[in-house]
């Protein structure tokens, strides 16, 4: 299965989203996954793909953004396995942008 297939399967199973809506350019917020939902999704993606989200800010607005980010991470961590850092995916408050994921506290 491709990365897209696996993430689509997660969204269908865990979020009960109609598979027809899961196009690459579908905005996560339009799918009902807002900024805190993205943090939770990324937590589950860490388990599914056995990757560790690094301590960096990324903007993930669409399903395609998530797929590309995970592919990049998997490639990076397969070539040079990173020592697991802090758990990723802390939610950012309003004003930090939809789908932005960070490991630093928001407040």
């Amino acid at each position, binding site marked *: 299965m491709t990365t897209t297939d696996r993430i689509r399967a997660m969204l269908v199973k865990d979020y009960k989203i109609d598979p027809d809506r899961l196009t690459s350019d579908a905005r996560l917020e339009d799918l009902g996954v807002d900024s805190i*939902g993205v943090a939770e999704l990324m937590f589950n993606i860490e388990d599914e793909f056995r990757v560790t989200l690094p301590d960096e800010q990324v903007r993930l607005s669409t399903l395609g953004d998530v797929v590309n980010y995970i592919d990049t991470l998997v490639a990076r961590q397969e070539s040079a396995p990173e020592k*697991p850092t802090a758990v990723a995916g802390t939610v950012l408050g309003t004003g930090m942008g939809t789908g932005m994921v960070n490991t630093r506290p928001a407040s």
Partner: protein
Amino acid sequence: MRRVAVTGIGIVSPLGHTAAELFDAARNGRSGVHRLDIAGAERLTAPLAATVQFDSSAFFEPARERLLDRVSQFAVVAAARAFADARCELTDHERGHAGVFLGTGMGGTLTVDDGYQTLYGEHSDRTHPMMILKGMHNAPAAWIGIEHGLRGPNLTYSTACSSSSVAIGEAWLRVAYGTLDVAVAGGAEAPLSLGSLKAWGAMHTLASVDTADPASSCKPFAKNRSGLVLGEGAALVILEPWERATARGATIHGELIGYGLTTDAGHIARPSLDGQAAAMRAALAAACISSQEIDAINAHGTGTQANDSVETAAIKLVFGERAPRIPISATKALHGHLLGAGGALEFVLSLLALKNNVALPTMHLKIPDPECDLDYVPNVARGGAAGRTMLSNSFAFGGTNAVLAVRAVH
């Protein structure tokens, strides 16, 4: 001061999901207590609880459902039911000022318990990113505000077993004194994690299992009472000024006429006769009525040795020679102790008792206790006995005593 009407009731309870179901079960003595079947139940001395039949997926989109602890789910559903019952369509201006007042004793304890199981039980560092947002005590109130766009005060009260009576009372103060026109107030609790049950058990406050009939294990005011049974659920009411309610043709369930709040400042867990009596007197004073006007009482009545004897003595202190003639109901025998939601559920039961003029029974009271020698309406409801005005008592670990005075519309 303004008169305060209760115009909406929303229930998520072990005795049902509507006011009618709740009242019917309470009047007919149908218990929601049963043997608890959760992972680890075999480690409990007395695996009992009053649980709610609740399918969260029926109420929430999956992406939203995953962000709410069970206690917030209960709170949001009960608040929606209260607003629907009140037929209360708020304008944007009204939402800009409307308030949420919610009591909870243990907040998102299920989430916290899960998180600690991961951390300590499984020795995993995969702490869930929603643990804080699901577990924090003010999450249930916050989600109610978010769901309905209520931008006035959004306050959470955590005074253990009196939390939701405090929440309703504090909302009443604001509506009565004119600083707020609409409030949704009450409590929510989902305390049935293994960690919480073990902690309550360790205090020796939980009832032992009545092996002949587990549903009757909680026996308030009986000589063979052995403790409380934990319950879960939520109860929210809509409070608004009497004039506003009548002007819009609302159905008024009852009038909240007074609120008494005192603190024992004594022992952290042992109830105080003086503190309880002072709270009842404070509620009477706030309502500007004498003790003669109280027709019935919904007791705190937990079924513990200490509470029931002290509460009996406190009622005698306040009501004197009339005390034996006042019907006293302890409905926790049926719905269990909802902790931070208990006061709100019992406030609703008081409203319903008045509305139907029925004194609700104190079930499982077969063996009288000489120390508890008042009229607890044992085992059978009494029609025509609730009268016009009731007190609803809530007393708490920590010593916060809250009493609500409620009056029938008829």
